[in-house]
């Protein structure tokens, strides 16, 4: 089980009977063995209500269930793929960045306003996350897509990290994020640095950043 990185843009997953995998629809490149791909309406856990919730929240990236026994290769759109292993903590990521994740992980949709009220919502808009984001928690591996290579920056209580909202990919651990603004009179007269908004992440955990400001 788990994902093996074949090259920066492709991962290989092993599927065994009784274990299932969720992946973005259409992201399978090739497979060996006896594997079936079933469109998953509910996209994991939570039944019909959470499915409707996800649709309203615009976090309803179509998923499919991968079951059987064999190996499957995943890749999508030529994007770089980063495998993140979770051991009990929670990963926050946009649903359309999810390439594949193990069925042992629990998926739910989080309202950004619950993390910091109105500023959370503003932050979601600026960061291109919208008002909602997806959280995966439990034990297992996630393959996340990004434009350009991905690097991991540890966040420690002494050392908060500032990230360009457009380059932000995901974060996990006990991290609070806050939108910090550096708007000044220069921005008002059109002479800004173009870096007026930053995400400030503090706490303990890690943030994943892509080497590009292009969104997926």
């Amino acid at each position: 089980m788990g994902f093996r990185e074949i090259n920066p843009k492709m991962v290989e997953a092993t599927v065994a009977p009784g274990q299932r995998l969720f992946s973005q629809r259409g992201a399978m490149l090739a497979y060996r063995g006896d594997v079936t791909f079933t469109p998953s309406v509910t996209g994991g856990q939570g039944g019909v209500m959470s499915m409707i919730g996800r649709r309203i929240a615009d976090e309803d990236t179509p998923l499919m269930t991968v079951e059987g026994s064999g190996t499957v290769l995943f890749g999508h759109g030529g994007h770089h793929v980063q495998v993140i292993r979770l051991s009990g903590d929670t990963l926050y990521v946009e649903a359309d960045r999810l390439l594949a994740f193990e069925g042992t992980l629990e998926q739910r949709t989080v309202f950004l306003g619950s993390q910091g009220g109105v500023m959370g919502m503003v932050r979601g808009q600026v960061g291109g996350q919208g008002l909602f984001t997806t959280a995966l928690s439990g034990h297992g591996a996630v393959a996340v897509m990004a434009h350009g290579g991905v690097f991991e920056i540890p966040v420690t209580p002494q050392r908060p990290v500032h990230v360009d909202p457009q380059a932000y990919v995901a974060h996990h651990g006990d991290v609070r994020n806050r939108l910090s603004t550096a708007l000044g009179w220069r921005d008002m007269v059109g002479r800004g640095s173009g870096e007026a908004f930053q995400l400030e992440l503090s706490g303990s955990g890690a943030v994943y950043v892509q080497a590009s400001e292009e969104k997926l």
Partner: protein
Amino acid sequence: MSSHGFSGGPAVHDPATLPSDDNVNAYTFCVELDGSQWFLQKGKMISYYGSIEFDGIGHGRLDRLIRTSFHSPLHASDWVVARGSGKMLLADRAFDVNSFDLEDGNLTIRSGNLLAFQPSLALKQSIVPGFLTLIGTGKFVAASNGPVVFMEPPIRVDPQALVGWADCPSPCHHYDHGYMTGVLGGLRALTGLGGASGEEHQFEFVGAGTVLLQSSETLMAEQPMGAVPPDAGVPGGGAHGGQGQQSGAPRLPGQLGDLQRRFGL
């Protein structure tokens, strides 16, 4: 030689330090010409050193060459012959570029992915529409969206991820729509509720050989490769219309029309 790449800024090449018939970086390939010839797709040369002539083919002077190593004259106008001596750089829109050596072998490749090849190889149209076959001994250069991965059959491959195959494993279609059967599945197929997984159709390869995959499902633009004679029994020949559509046309996930047709609905 010029490996001061990372610390001292970009590597600066001159004719002596450029590799000979090898990659300069993942996206650029350098061909050394020494009185020899290469075929290349129009517009894929980005720069060259030395004296190299680029001749469009199909204009008389190179008729013999075309007869011996270019067996599909119908699309010859999309290729040029590079002749002379020097080094030339090939690239295609920052796609990954790789060279492959064939030794008395055969390899079938998607027409859009092939950039250049040595005239010691013979280029023919494949029976599979949209693909070209290279036969013989020599080197060729191909582009792909993401690095190329080599897999051994038996394997099933997404049509958009397939770059090509070597040594003749049998390529055939494989349909997987088990979830469309039964009462719930029938409802799903009729209403379109729940969508399709987008993976109902694969290319299946069995037998001995190698299958080449690219790391993404974004296709390279298909290169015109000429028509095949419109005879009965020739796939894509037009005698029975539209047979060759399946391989090239991109399929949208959730597109149900063709599935329904497949079920006779």
